[in-house]
């Protein structure tokens, strides 16, 4: 068995080539030469030997597999399905496929009903899972077929007008007759699809109710509730998908649509926008509208281009660290301990403690000094006088305005409520 990682790596390395092969998958098989050519086209840097080896790698990973009794290659089915899903390149399925699935759903719900009556929880669970799988498959069919019809319609709309109408719309007519009409019959209110979904819904409701009453199969009840929601949704999805597909096909089928060069170009562009996104489709040729105010503002295309050009050339300036010898050694601030400060506070009356601190510790920065001042004046060891008027204290780079507080050291320690106002 080939390790999945190797296959994924190969898909990643050669996605443009594989994408091209998926898009043209309807044309059938391809030769080794074509594969090699596509690899060279998407990887111009590779030499022909390297492209040969890469092509062999794709075959070794079984992404492309040789056809029986032939030198031709084809994409392996799982890879083709995965790629089509990624690229919205589905081909229209058959109404019979959905019909078979609906029949199977009917068969499975009968089994669920029987198992439920026999109280066989394991069988109920197993069949519910299988039923869930069938419902998912039907939803997938609806969605894929809608995309496939949209692709058919877009192709028919954008084909050259010189092609005869019957030929151009051949695929559209075929799609309508072989898919839409049988599906419309099936989704009809008295059709098979509606009857089956109604039946499933009834059986599931009965099981849920029985589980509520008896308290048995609680685990299965949860799955039943989910499944019932999904089945209700299924009918809606089927109708919506079919309605949208019919809307797309009707104008072509009835030959109502007018085809001109303009509509052909428009259809092609819109199809590209739907599939590949708007960014690379319309930007290049869009009419330029500009206002005078905008022309003199920033944000113009050329402003952005020049800005980006500048960014490309932008280089960070090299950070040059100074030599160790030139650097001043780091010295921690010599902040005095509060206790020491209090010891050195003069016992006699001092008119302004801030001034006194400023003189004593002249090397301290203003914020440290202010902090010290706050601690000093809040200290219970001092007896402060009434605050004076605001006073300015000049430092090297700043000016501190504070109420000057004076006082003297008290003999007994009592609390003081005075606080300075800054």
């Amino acid at each position, binding site marked *: 068995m080939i390790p999945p990682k190797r296959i994924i790596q190969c898909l990643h390395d050669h996605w443009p080539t594989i994408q*091209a092969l998926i898009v*043209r998958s309807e044309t059938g098989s391809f030769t080794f030469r*074509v594969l090699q*050519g*596509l690899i060279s*086209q998407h990887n111009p840097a590779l030499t022909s030997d390297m492209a040969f080896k890469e092509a062999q790698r794709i075959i070794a990973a079984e992404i492309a597999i040789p056809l029986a009794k032939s030198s031709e290659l084809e994409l392996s089915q799982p890879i083709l399905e995965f790629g089509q899903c990624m690229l919205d390149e589905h081909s229209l399925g058959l109404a019979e496929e959905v019909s078979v699935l609906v029949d199977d759903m009917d068969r499975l719900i009968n089994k669920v009903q029987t198992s439920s009556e026999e109280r066989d929880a394991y069988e109920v669970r197993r069949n519910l899972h299988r039923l869930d799988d069938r419902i998912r498959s039907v939803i997938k069919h609806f969605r894929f077929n809608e995309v496939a019809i949209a692709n058919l319609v877009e192709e028919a*709309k954008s084909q050259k007008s010189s092609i005869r109408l019957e030929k151009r719309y051949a695929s559209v007519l075929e799609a309508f007759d072989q898919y839409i009409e049988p599906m419309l019959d099936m989704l009809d209110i008295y059709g098979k699809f509606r009857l089956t979904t109604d039946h499933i819904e009834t059986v599931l409701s009965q099981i849920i109710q029985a589980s509520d009453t008896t308290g048995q199969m609680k685990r299965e009840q949860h799955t039943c509730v989910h499944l019932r929601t999904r089945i209700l949704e299924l009918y809606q999805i089927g109708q919506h998908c079919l309605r949208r597909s019919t*809307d797309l096909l009707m*104008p072509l089928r009835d030959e*109502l*649509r*007018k*085809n*001109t*060069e*303009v*509509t*052909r*170009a*428009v*259809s*092609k*562009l*819109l199809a*590209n*926008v*739907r599939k590949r*996104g*708007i960014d690379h*489709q*319309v*930007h*290049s*040729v*869009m*009419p*330029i*509208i*500009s*206002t*005078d*105010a*905008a*022309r003199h*503002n920033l*944000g*113009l*295309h*050329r402003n*952005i281009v020049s800005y980006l050009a500048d960014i490309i050339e932008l280089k960070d300036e090299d950070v040059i660290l100074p030599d160790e010898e030139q650097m001043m050694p780091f010295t921690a601030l010599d902040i005095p301990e509060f206790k020491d400060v209090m010891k050195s506070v003069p016992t006699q009356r001092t008119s302004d403690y801030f001034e006194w601190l400023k003189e004593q510790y002249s090397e301290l920065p203003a914020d440290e000094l202010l902090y010290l001042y706050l601690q000093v004046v809040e200290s219970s060891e001092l007896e402060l006088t009434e605050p004076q008027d605001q006073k300015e204290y000049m430092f090297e780079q700043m000016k501190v305005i504070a109420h000057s507080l004076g006082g003297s050291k008290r003999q007994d320690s009592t609390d003081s409520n005075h606080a300075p106002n800054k």
Partner: protein
Amino acid sequence: MNQDLLEIPNIEPQIEQEQTKGPRGIIDLSLMKSLMPTYQKLMSGFHITEANISLWQELDQYYIQYQQLFTGLGYTLIKDARGYFYFSSPDTTVTMTKTSRRIALFVYTLLEHWADRGYDPIGALFDQPLNKDVCRLVYDKNTTVFDQIDINNASDIQNEILKRMVRLGFAKEQGKEHRLLPSCYRYIDAVMELSDTLNQEDQTTDEDAE
């Protein structure tokens, strides 16, 4: 010298002389009575069509003079034979590019809509009135396209796209309806140009694959 006479010595008119009114190279400002509103409209990115009849008539009549004057001022006045005038500029802003893209996709989805309904698409584009119902139908059929240009419902088409089209001279209001103006041909020309490019790309890809 008469103040209303402005001499532009070095500019040669590009169109045949017989269309010119007044002496060659001399612009008679007294004849250009709507110069100011015309300039203001064109400068704001507006397309002057026959919906603005007085401006359009004067521009059509004195096209050479207007063209000379605007060229002298650094603008390029473009006249399209299908009936509209606008200032061409090589540069635009990101916002304007977004607006232009929205208008483009709306015009294209409308063309598709009228073609699907069996009308002559270009005729219907200009003749059929645009109302809420048409916007809703066009939106419903092209949700994946409109999602890509941040239009999330049919009323957004009216509020975001049609209002802007009116402001730029691509549409006019008629009561509760709108009608598109010939200036939309700019977008039709663009899609034809793009179609040629896409066809060439397809051919190249086919040849390469073979």
